[in-house]
């Protein structure tokens, strides 16, 4: 479904990612691991069209989307749930979710998508008219995930969904991720939490200083000594 070919990208002409290649198959849950500043968020922002590509190709369902604008990529179904949730704090939960479905592809199916989101997160149903900025961190993560689903994601990219959450909420959010995976949604999961990602992902890539250091099935990546080295900077 997604193929990243030899992508080099960065900020102000300085590359952060160098010749990164990866694939995500339809219905797969792929983990993207690495220590701080390994380039995980940069890669996900490159895929979203927030950070421009310097060289290489990004194929989504066979079409090169490297030059496509960020809004058009969302129309195509490439949706990111950003790190830190980034809910619209002065807007209600309902408005946040509706805004998720504002793109041209998702808009016609907004009512059905809203029902699906509320079935996954019944608690949001009780908070619909509450300002998102007044919710707890866990509830904000539900809004952020729900908003991503409202956008009609065909490739859902989750950037650190466990960041800053209590263990109970982390368990709940990963339960939802598993459920979405079981429903056939393609997911690219960016996480620092190695154990959690290896437990849930089908395959993983480990980034180290902007290059892919290790790749393969979760158990292979777990047993590879380079994975530990990438985290510990050895």
């Amino acid at each position, binding site marked *: 479904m997604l193929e990243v070919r030899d992508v080099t990208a960065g900020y102000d002409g300085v590359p952060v990612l160098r010749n990164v290649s990866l694939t995500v198959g339809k219905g797969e849950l792929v983990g993207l691991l690495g220590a701080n500043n390994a380039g995980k968020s940069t890669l996900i922002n490159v895929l979203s069209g927030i950070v421009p590509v310097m060289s290489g190709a990004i194929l989504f369902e066979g079409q090169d989307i490297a030059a496509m604008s960020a809004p058009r990529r969302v129309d195509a179904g490439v949706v990111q749930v*950003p790190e830190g949730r980034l809910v619209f704090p002065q807007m209600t939960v309902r408005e946040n979710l509706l805004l998720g479905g504002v793109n041209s592809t998702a808009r016609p199916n907004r009512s059905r998508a809203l029902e699906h989101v509320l079935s996954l997160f019944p608690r949001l149903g009780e908070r619909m008219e509450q300002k998102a900025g007044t919710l707890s961190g866990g509830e904000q993560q539900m809004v952020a995930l729900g908003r991503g689903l409202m956008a009609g994601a065909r490739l859902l990219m989750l950037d650190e969904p466990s960041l800053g959450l209590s263990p109970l909420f982390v368990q709940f959010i990963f339960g939802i991720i598993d459920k979405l995976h079981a429903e056939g949604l393609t997911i690219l999961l960016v996480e620092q939490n190695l154990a959690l990602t290896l437990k849930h992902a089908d395959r993983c890539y480990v980034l180290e200083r902007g290059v892919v250091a290790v790749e393969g099935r979760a158990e292979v990546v777990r047993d590879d000594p380079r994975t530990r080295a990438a985290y510990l900077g050895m």
Partner: protein
Amino acid sequence: MEELLQAIVQGFFVGSTYGLLALGMGLVYGVSGIVNFSHGDFVTLGMYLCLALFSAFALDPYVSIIVVLPVMTLLGAIVYQYLIRPIAGRHLLMIIQLTLGLSLLLQNALMMTFGGQPTRTPSMIESKLFIVGDVVIRGSHLVACISSFALAFLLYFVLQSTDVGRSIRAVQQEPRAAALMGVDVGRVQVMTFAIGIGILAIAAALLLPGLPIQPNQGLRLTVITLLVFVLGGMTNFVGIMLGGVVIGVAEAVGTIYMTEVLGQLLPYLIFIAIMLFRPQGLVWRS
């Protein structure tokens, strides 16, 4: 007492249009973080466009809105796209310099085209008067007040209840998240600036009947708009309209009860007093 009541009513009516001017500024500030120091000059430009249409085709200022509104909206989009956008996000002083430069450019262009003498544009309802008890209400003030509140309400409705409005508010609150949800942030910013300038076209036509205009009046209007904008809490709709009324009433009362110079100072004195006790604006809540 009758004079005071008359001043308050007149100030309320004119102040509502000041509120409308500040809503335009608030909209642009909320989405782009830009305070446009040529705001008042765009109002003046709108007034002169109405004057030109009156001179050429004897069009009433209210009718001229049909032409001036799209022209000013388009101009707003062009100014944002080609002048402001390239430096948006840079140092605040650069934006201030640019919009002040634009102010001077507009002033001098109007001076070259229309001359510097004060000019009036008549309107079909300029001489209409309504008498309620001891208060005389000018027809143009009544139209300005009703139209300003109606437009403010419409704008509020659009921002709260439509996808376009929600996209504008999303860009205002979290531009990055808005982009990730498929909102074209750049387009929203251009559109919002254009709407902000379009609002000024309507405000210009509403303020114009019976008002002598001069090419160099823009800065005074910008300063009044800034007072209202800050009093209202920058992006609070109710606060901005209330701020407009406070400044309008202060101006009217000052003109009647004080010497001309002191009367003109009264809105600024009230502004300073309110800022000392409520620096967060009139209706801001934590």
